[in-house]
């Protein structure tokens, strides 16, 4: 299994609702633990990761801060509507990033949309998102 959400592997952030150039959304998929994306105020916030090809998702790991309600959705190609994969309410954390693992149930996806529906503060950070799985044979 690979981390499919790596910019090195060709994954791309095709949409993000906040952008401070100092903390861009690409920081979530650069493979580093110490860089992050910040949301710049208001809810909901979201970003979409596009994989290089159709993939099958085993697990998703997200490391973030101040996130409360989180929703993950997938679409199997660019013309398909997004379907909900998981909805979670994260526990608050004081002194370290939150870390959450979500089962992908081997769902087929071309795009992954992550929605932060609410937070424990005005601003959230997402440090890293790893999507473990395999490329689908076409």
């Amino acid at each position: 299994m690979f981390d499919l959400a790596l910019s090195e592997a060709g994954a791309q952030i095709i949409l993000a609702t906040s952008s401070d150039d100092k903390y861009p959304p690409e920081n979530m998929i650069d493979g580093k633990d110490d860089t992050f994306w910040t949301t710049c105020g208001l809810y909901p916030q979201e970003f979409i990761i596009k994989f290089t090809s159709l993939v099958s998702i085993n697990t998703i790991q997200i490391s973030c801060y101040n996130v409360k309600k989180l929703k993950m959705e997938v679409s199997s190609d660019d013309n398909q509507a997004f379907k909900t994969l998981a909805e979670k309410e994260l526990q608050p954390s004081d002194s370290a990033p939150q870390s959450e693992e979500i089962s992908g149930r081997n769902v087929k996806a071309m795009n992954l949309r992550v929605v932060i529906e609410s937070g424990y503060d005005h601003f959230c950070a997402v440090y890293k998102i790893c999507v473990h799985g395999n490329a689908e044979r076409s």
Partner: protein
Amino acid sequence: MPAVIRAKCIVVGDAGVGKSAICQLFTSDGSHFPKNYTLTMGAEFMVKPVVIPDTQDTVEMYMYDSAGKEIFTDMVMKFWDHPSMMIVVYDVTSETSFSSCEKWIERVRSQKPDVPFPGALVANKIDLEQRRIVGPKAGKELAMKTGLDYYECSAKEMQNVDTPFYFLASEYYKLYQEKVELFKAFVA
């Protein structure tokens, strides 16, 4: 590209105190003071970008000018989820509007009880000197008690209307910077 920080600014207070006048003046850069009273039904929404001095960053203020008439309250409160900041306005010639402020503050704060957010208490219509009943001392005391910053203005004379907005924008921007420092500290 500079950062654009977004803030939801809830503007509340009794009917007729001048909320719409203040919001319209601020968003029109002082070119529009509504002389005749048109009561707001529900909430009116407007956006105004504020550039933060000495930076290239902007705080975009999404303002919710809310109706003061009680019959609209349940309806307007639906627009208030996730507030970033609030402006509470009263009319210095109306004791009632002043005593209502705490009720308005409570209502906005109840939306996000765990998350502190900046707010301003604005004493409007200071041009009506002869009819003024609520003095600066009472205003400042209430502001102190409720944790808001106190401002006086006259929308009619276009005096000091922008100041509370600029103050809130810069407070919010500071909050953002503090949070970013915290985010960094976790992984430093």
